[in-house]
């Protein structure tokens, strides 16, 4: 029996290391999930003289998608967002993070605009409030203004189908 111990230890270690290999170190669980979405009042991209406040969204389930024209992965998820916006399930609000108005508007003109409204966070302050560290990031916020889900990095078709859409349906039914 004693002879098998090293083998058992090896197998346990191998399993741990194997699982460790498949984890993504950039997916840090957000402490903001289940907490109220930080309130903000920011200028709109298409008309900076107008402001938009997150308080206006009380009573609605909405998506907050943090993007930027300089962000490469944003291109990856863009077709998905466009398809989602065409289905009219949920309003998608874009937060143009650390970007300029010219670049941001050009990006939307060229790539299509899936957003109900875009607001700008030029200095990244609101980004810090939301714990943004890897654009794109997508937040699902419920009727009470609580963050229910956060996707870090480009959302995938699978992620949308298995997590985000069912969650939205569930939250909207409440």
């Amino acid at each position, binding site marked *: 029996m004693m002879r098998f111990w090293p083998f058992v230890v090896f197998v346990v270690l191998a399993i741990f290391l194997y699982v460790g290999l498949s984890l993504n170190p950039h997916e*840090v669980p957000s402490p*903001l999930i289940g907490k109220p979405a930080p309130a903000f009042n920011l200028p709109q991209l298409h008309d900076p003289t107008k402001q938009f406040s997150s308080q206006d969204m009380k009573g609605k389930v909405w998506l907050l998608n943090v993007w930027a024209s300089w962000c490469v992965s944003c291109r990856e998820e863009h077709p998905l967002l466009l398809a989602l916006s065409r289905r009219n399930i949920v309003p998608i609000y874009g937060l143009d993070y650390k970007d300029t108005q010219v670049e941001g508007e050009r990006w939307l003109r060229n790539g299509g605009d899936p957003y109900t409204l875009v607001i700008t966070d030029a200095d*990244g302050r609101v980004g*810090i409030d939301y714990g943004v560290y890897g654009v794109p990031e997508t937040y699902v916020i419920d009727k009470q203004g609580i963050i229910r889900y956060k996707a870090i990095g480009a959302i995938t078709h699978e992620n949308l189908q298995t997590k985000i859409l069912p969650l939205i349906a569930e939250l909207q039914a409440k």
Partner: protein
Amino acid sequence: MKYLLMLLICLLPTFSYAGQAKDLADDPVLEQRMVKLAENLRCLVCQNESLASSRSDLAKDLRQEVRDKMNQGMTDQQIIDFLVSKYGDFVLFDPPVKSYTLLLWYGPFALLLIGLVGLVLQMRKRKNAAPESQLSAEEMQRASALLNQPKDSQT
């Protein structure tokens, strides 16, 4: 002409040098306090770098945020709590002892203990299993004969 062109190309890096964005507080005491705090915080973009040493944009913004909060009179602990509330325990290089970090903190000691217990058990078993063998007089003689062989006889 060719040489002139080459010279120009060599000089290109000097021209393209851009002034760096200001990333220092005016108050050296505050700056030092910020760096000391930021050294123990992780930059989430380049995860093995500290907030103090990272050159990523987010780290730059967060350093500014820390400076602003210090100017507002927040204590180091309040600033750390703020960052943890936004980014989670992951921003701390020194993870706090919690139920799910127990293995991390005490796992090595548990392993050491298991090793020690195993060693003691093994040594006890060996002591009981193998009593010291005594050589008979004849074997002793053979051993000493083998050991004391003159060197040249080996060749």
